[in-house]
Structure formats: C-alpha cells, structure tokens
C-alpha cells in the first residue's frame, strides 16, 4: 500500500469552492422567492384572520403558520429550481462533473483512500456481501490499488461479533484481499458512530488522504468511487463531497413507495439543493468522501452543554461535521448522481418511526449550535432546516388545534376581502404542495428520464397517483409521532442506540396495535369534538382525522409485502435494470438464502457456538483478540461462568457474562477443549445438539454467512 502524505493544511483553497459572486446571486434569487412566497402567504392569512381584530388564538395561529409556510416554500422552490436546472439547455457553471476531462478517467489514482464501514449489530451477510460487491466493482475499474477497506465494528452482541470476524476472514480469503480489507472491533463503543469514525481517524487517518464513509446498508459502484476521488483530487478546496444515495432493496409497500418517490422526485430536489447550497451543502453521514487532514484537524466533535437527550454527545454528527469543515474554509459539496450510490430504507412504518425518533433527537440537539459563533450563515440555515423538519410537525399540530378553537368561535359573517384572501391562500397552498410533484411527473412523462418505454412512463404516472394516497394517509400519523418526539426530547426523554432493522420480517400485529392505538383514539376524539364544533369544520379536517382513525390498518398494509410489484407499480430503474454492483450483491444474497439452516436455538447463538466449537473460528478469534496483561475480572469468576455455560447452555448467562468470557484469550481457548472433552450427559442439551449438528450445516464454518464465490 503506497500512502503518500496528505498535503499540508494551508489556507482555504478556492478550487471546488463556488465563487462568492455566483453563490450570493443564487441564494439571493432563491431566498427572494422563498421570502416572497412566505410573506404573501402570511399576509393572506393575516387578512383572513384579522377581519374583526386579532384575538390571541389568531396570533398563535399566525405564529405557527409562518414557519410552516416558509418550509413549504423552501421545498417548493428547491424542486422548481431543480427542475429548471435539469431541463435548461446550458451546463451548470458549478457542475463538478465538468471538472473531469475524458482523459482524467484513464489516469492512475495515486491518492490513498480508506473506504470505511462502521457497523453496529448489523446483518453480517448484508454487510459483507455489500462490501464484496463494492470491492469487485472497484477492482473492475482497474484503479483500485490505493483503496483500502475497513469494517469498523462496535457490535456488542457476541454472536454478531464472531460472525463478523469469520465473514471478514472468508471474504479476504475468497477475494485474496488480505492487507486490503481490514476488520477492527472496539472494546468500548465510546460516542457511538462518530466515536467509531474518530477512532479510525486517530489510528490510521494519517495514512490516507481521503476517507469514503459507508453505512452498513450502503452500496457504491467502483466507477463512482474512483470518479469521486478524482473530483477531490482536481478540486482541492472540497472538504466533503456528498452523493445522493438512492434507495434500493425494498420489499414492503412502504419501502417500495419511498424508494419510488425518492427515485422520481429526488433528482430535482437534489439539483435544487445543489443550486442554492453551493459550497455549504450538508453531509448525511455516509456515501460521501472526506478529505482527511482537515477533517482530523477541525471536525472533532465537542460535547454539547447539558445532558442527553438535548445536550451531551452529538447524535447527528454529520451536519455538525459539515459545518465545522465549512467553518475551517473547505467546501462541502453535493454531487448530483443518478446511479452508483445506494442505501436501504426502513421496511415498516414502526421501523421508520424508530429511525425518526433518533434523527429527531439528533436534529433537536442542533438548537445549541444555531447561535454559536463563527459558522457560515448557510450552516445556520442548514441547522434550522434540520430542526424544522421535525419541529414543523409540532407546529402543524398546534396549527390544527388553533384552527379547532377558532372553528368553535366563528365570526358571524366573513367580509368579501377575507373570503377572497382565504380562497387565494387555499389555492396557493395547494399549488405549493402539488405543483412540484405534478411538474416532476410531467417532466418524466415527456422526457422519459427514468424509463424510455411509454408503458413504463404511464405506469410511473399511475404509481405517482397511488403514492399520493399513501403519503396523504401517512402524513397526519407522522405529525402526531414527530410532535411527540419533539416534546419528549425537550422533556429530557432520550433514545437508546439501537440497530436499524433494514429487512422486512413480517408484520408484527401486536407491535402495530400498541404503537398506533393512541393515534386512532386521537382521531376519534377529535372527530367527536369537530362534530360538536361545526359540521363544516369536521368536513374540512376530515382527511386528517380519517388518516388518524385508519392508522392501524394503514400501518399493517404499508408494512406488508403486497406492493403492486407484479402490476408494475412503484418500479424503479434499479429494479428493472439493476446496476452490476447491485446485481452481484443480489445474486450472492439469494445463494445464502437457500442454505441449510441450523435449528433456531442454534442459529440464534451461531457465532458463540462457532467460537466455542470450531477450531478455526476459535483460532481466528484468539488471534484477533488483543492480549491483555491483566484482566478486568478474576480467573475463578471466568471459570465459574464457563462451567455454567457448558452445563446449562448460553441462555443461562447474561450478555455481560458472555462478553467477559469471550474477551479473554485463555478462557476462549480453554472453553473449546472443555466442551469437546465433556461427555454428553455433562453438557447442556444446547451443546450436545450443537456438537452433533454443527458439521452438517455448512461445508465450511466460514461460509455460513457468505456466498461461495472464489475468484478465478
């Protein structure tokens, strides 16, 4: 591995940083439209409300209406600017792709790049098969020499940890990639994902010029990775280059709708964001390449004042790292990409809410940073937008509450001017909500950007109509939950760091019922209240109340696997023509799915079973463990729990006890021989069965989680 040193950090460099003149002009244009839209909307609302003077509830309504309308305008104008950029005949002056000439793609890449994947109790097969596909795709470019891969594990479940080790070894063996793919497990996962990445930076950061960050469900093509490295080489003023990760691999209705919506409406939004964010874009934590030297020097995260959840360790580190990088003078750019950068989304509504709970807390923490000194103004805007993305749900909830109060105390007669303002506002709001979608859809129908065949374009049109129904039903439910998350965060109720479920495992009806019954109840109570307040009001608010009332069946339906796939609904290009990096991964995952599995009890503890019984896995684990001069617990304690595990099985030990054993080289080696030496009646039924069945499940202990794809 050749690792030329990163260039010395000098003054901020202009290459890759959009000229101030252009950036200012773009923002002045964009925010003028946004500001104008917000002012007009707020004024119309004021005219409507102030017909007979403003009561405090009307002031309250106006106060929550204004930020909501601002947010609506930001989305609207971002999409519209994006559509204009996508359809205008000339090139974008700031297009980073144009900094690469055709001959640049043939030149050797001399910069050393670490491709890192932080993992935390993730599906081992998905992680390593994804990594294999990326590795092979990079190899195919012929420019992979200076790229190294790192799996940075913080997994705290023993079986997961062992399976990761075994999968790493097997992958390296199959690809002949020892010295190219590395595995590192942290003993103490301090500061979660950002701490994991910082730990990498401290240990190996100096060896690499760039770091490409992946999520456990990320997938990137070699072509895009090499292009990103080349863009970073050409544009030395860029600190972070973020791609647009498209969603893939969805199997449920919710997943496929989100995937479809992102594929269809995502590109104009990304183009629009790139238009006005310029050199102050955001970092989304993965599928991005980072210049390591300034990152190490300037982007270490301090703890926030106060305790978690509002203070303490920064959860949504990516936004802050982007702001710190920009503060240090390096550009943070968004690279509009159509292919080559992928991720997976949550399969069910409950999983989506769990993820949102974490993201909400992370974004709310940024409140502290909005007023901090030294940020670029756009970094503050990014923080505010992040906060608004969740706080707006609470604002919308308040808006509806105020509306209910006002409906209960109607003014006797509306004058013509107020009536007119109300009608204009209604029309304007409907335009802001539906025009971007309609325009994007028309763009697809006329240009065939996603699909060329007319039939597919028409199916896209119909899918878009159908997704409107799904989003209309989901939006009020999300409003209730996001409002609750915001309130919980402010009240100091934090979230645990849990693994994101990325694949559907069937609908858990009980979980759905216990999650959504309160939402249903809110819908019913609100409807009864509305009935007494005014029938006209009830009619007006009924779409929201119906969605709340139907929360449970809706959650079940969207979490199911009937997604209209066979009728051609919600198709994306990644489903119809999967890129080679995705096709490789899908083939390998399909192979593993068809394997013989051990009984569920053994499968549950498979990693533990392997490290205890298998001579090679045991050898691998002991080889990878760092030898410690002193152990945290006494030898007699370790012997006692080892004996308990042999006689009563792994279920008799708690996670801490298992971890204590598995971290000690002597105990792990000893356990292997003690288990094999014990007579059947001395063993727990778990071990007796495991010894008899272990050799039957797989031809090799290392193939349990990986496909068999030896390199020719």
């Amino acid at each position, binding site marked *: 591995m050749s690792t030329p040193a990163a260039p010395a950090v000098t003054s901020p460099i202009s290459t890759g940083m959009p000229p101030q003149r252009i950036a200012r002009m773009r923002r002045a244009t964009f925010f003028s439209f946004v500001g104008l839209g917000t002012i007009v909307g707020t004024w119309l609302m004021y005219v409507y409300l102030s017909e007979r003077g403003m009561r405090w509830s009307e002031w309250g309504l106006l106060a929550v209406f204004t930020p909501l309308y601002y947010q609506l305008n930001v989305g609207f104008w971002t999409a519209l600017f994006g559509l204009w950029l996508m359809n205008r005949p000339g090139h974008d002056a700031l297009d980073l792709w144009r900094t690469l000439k055709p001959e640049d793609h043939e030149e050797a890449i001399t910069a050393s790049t670490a491709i890192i994947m932080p993992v935390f109790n993730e599906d081992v097969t998905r992680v390593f098969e994804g990594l294999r596909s990326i590795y092979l795709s990079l190899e195919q470019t012929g420019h992979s020499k200076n790229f190294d891969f790192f799996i940075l594990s913080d997994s705290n479940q023993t079986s997961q940890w062992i399976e990761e080790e075994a999968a790493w070894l097997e992958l390296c063996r199959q690809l002949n990639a020892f010295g190219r793919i590395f595995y*590192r497990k942290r003993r103490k996962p301090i500061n979660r994902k950002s701490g994991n990445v910082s730990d990498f930076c401290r240990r190996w950061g100096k060896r690499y010029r760039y770091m490409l960050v992946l999520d456990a469900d990320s997938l990137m093509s070699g072509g895009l990775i090499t292009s990103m490295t080349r863009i970073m080489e050409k544009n030395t003023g860029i600190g972070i280059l973020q791609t647009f990760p498209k969603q893939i691999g969805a199997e449920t209705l919710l997943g496929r709708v989100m995937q479809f919506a992102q594929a269809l409406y995502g590109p104009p939004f990304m183009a629009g964001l790139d238009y006005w964010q310029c050199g102050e874009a955001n970092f989304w934590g993965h599928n991005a390449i980072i210049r390591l030297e300034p990152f190490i020097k300037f982007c270490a995260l301090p703890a926030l*004042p106060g305790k978690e959840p509002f203070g303490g360790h920064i959860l949504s580190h990516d936004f802050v790292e982007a702001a710190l990088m920009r503060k240090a003078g390096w550009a943070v750019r968004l690279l509009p990409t159509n292919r080559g950068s992928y991720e997976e989304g949550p399969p069910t509504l409950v999983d989506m809410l769990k993820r949102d709970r974490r993201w909400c807390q992370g974004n709310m923490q940024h409140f502290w940073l909005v007023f901090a000194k030294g940020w670029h103004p756009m970094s503050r805007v990014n923080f505010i937008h992040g906060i608004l993305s969740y706080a707006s749900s609470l604002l919308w909830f308040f808006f509806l509450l105020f509306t209910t109060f006002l409906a209960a105390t109607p003014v006797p007669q509306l004058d013509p001017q107020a009536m007119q303002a109300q009608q204009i506002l209604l029309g304007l709001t409907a335009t802001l909500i539906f025009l971007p979608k309609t325009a994007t859809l028309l763009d697809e129908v006329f240009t065939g950007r996603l699909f060329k065949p007319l039939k597919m374009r028409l199916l896209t049109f119909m899918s878009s109509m159908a997704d409107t129904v799904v989003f209309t039903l989901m939006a009020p439910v999300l409003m209730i939950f996001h409002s609750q998350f915001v309130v919980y965060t402010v009240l100091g109720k934090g979230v645990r760091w849990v693994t994101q479920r990325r694949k559907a495992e069937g609908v858990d009806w009980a979980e759905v019922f216990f999650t959504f019954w309160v939402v249903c109840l809110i819908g019913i109570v609100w409807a009864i209240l509305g009935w007494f307040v005014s029938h006209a009001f009830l009619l007006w608010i009924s779409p929201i109340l119906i969605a709340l009332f139907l929360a449970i069946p809706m959650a079940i339906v969207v979490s199911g696997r009937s997604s209209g796939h066979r009728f051609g609904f919600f198709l994306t290009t990644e489903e119809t023509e999967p890129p080679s990096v995705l096709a490789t991964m899908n083939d390998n995952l399909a192979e593993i799915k068809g394997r013989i599995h051990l009984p569920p009890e053994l499968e549950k503890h498979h990693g533990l079973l392997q490290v205890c019984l298998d001579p*090679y896995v045991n050898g691998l684990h002991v080889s990878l463990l760092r030898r410690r001069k002193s152990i945290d617990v006494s030898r007699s304690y370790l012997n006692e729990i080892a004996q308990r595990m042999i006689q009563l099985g792994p279920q008799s030990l708690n996670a801490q006890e298992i971890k204590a054993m598995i971290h000690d080289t002597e105990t792990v080696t000893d356990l292997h021989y003690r288990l094999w030496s014990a007579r059947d009646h001395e063993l727990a039924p778990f071990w007796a069965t495991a010894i008899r069945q272990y050799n039957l499940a797989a031809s090799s*202990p290392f193939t349990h989680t990986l496909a068999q794809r030896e390199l020719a």
Partner: protein
Amino acid sequence: MEAVNIQFAPETGTEEEWNEAYARLADYFRSYQLHNRIRRTQLILETLRRAAAAHKTNTKKTPTAHSIEQARIMLKEWLGAIYSDMNLNESQLEAGGRLGFHLSGGPARWPNFFLDKENLPQDMIEAMRSAVRASGPGMQVSKMTPRDIDLGRVSEVAEDTFDTLGRHPILRYSILIGIVVAVLTYLYLLFR
C-alpha cells in the same frame, strides 16, 4: 506416524465410554473439515490408542477427555514442528497454527498430512507459515482533539434554563402542568 492398530483393546474404561470417545473424536476431526473418511478414521484410532495409554495412568478422567487432550497434544507437536523457529508462544501457536492450516487450504490440499509430524511436505510448511492474518495496517496515530464551540449568549441562557429544569424535575413538570391548566381554563372560558 506409526501403523494404525485396528485391534483397539483398552485396558481401562467401559466399551460405552470408548464408543462415546470415538464418536466425539469423529465429530471433532470433522470440525477440522477433514472430509477424507479413511484419514479421519486413522486419526481417530491413533488418538484413541494414545488416550487408552493415558487413561491407564489416570482413570479419573473420562476416555472422551483423554481423547481430546491427546488430540490437542498431537496438534501442538505437529504445529511446533511447522512453526519451530517462529518464536510463537503456546496460545499463538495453537490459535495461529490452526488458522494457518485453514488459510493455506490445508484441509483440502494436505488432509493426509494433518497431525503427521513425521511427514511434513515442504509446500505445506511454506503455505502455512506464509498464511497471513491481518487485523489492521500499521497504525499512524493522529491527534483528533475537539475544539470548543462558542455557543453564544442565547445558548448560554438556554443552557442555564435547561440545566435548572434538568436539576429540578418538579419544576419542569410544574411548568408543563401550568401550561395544560392554562389551556383547559381557556377552553372553559371559551365554551362557558
């Protein structure tokens, strides 16, 4: 390795105990991915022969325990001969040696030479010694120290407030209850 004595007749232990030891050794050598049954049987019988001798001197241990212990001794001797000059401690020798056999493709390429310290093919020795296990490249340590962010006056006030509320949950919930009571009072006045 000596010729295998198929007429295995241990002087101590019951037939049931030795049958159990046989079954366990069969599973144990299978876990080494030795798919050649003849070779596996040779190894089992050789190990049992050694175990029978050991059991005669110590009958407190079961034949199964003696068998696995003998298999371990044979493994250590065999690995010791392969890695003789590599200065490995016992734990490294056992763990790394087993892994070296796997990574060099030993179970498929040299199953007949497994645990046979008298016959060590040169290519097997070289392959096992060069089998690389890397958990990470050499470290080049950097400092990544967080710099304080001046959060400004507003955050200071907010911090003090949240700090106070955080330290006094009764105060926090009193404020919340106050807000709820105010809203309910307003509703009462509205519909009175």
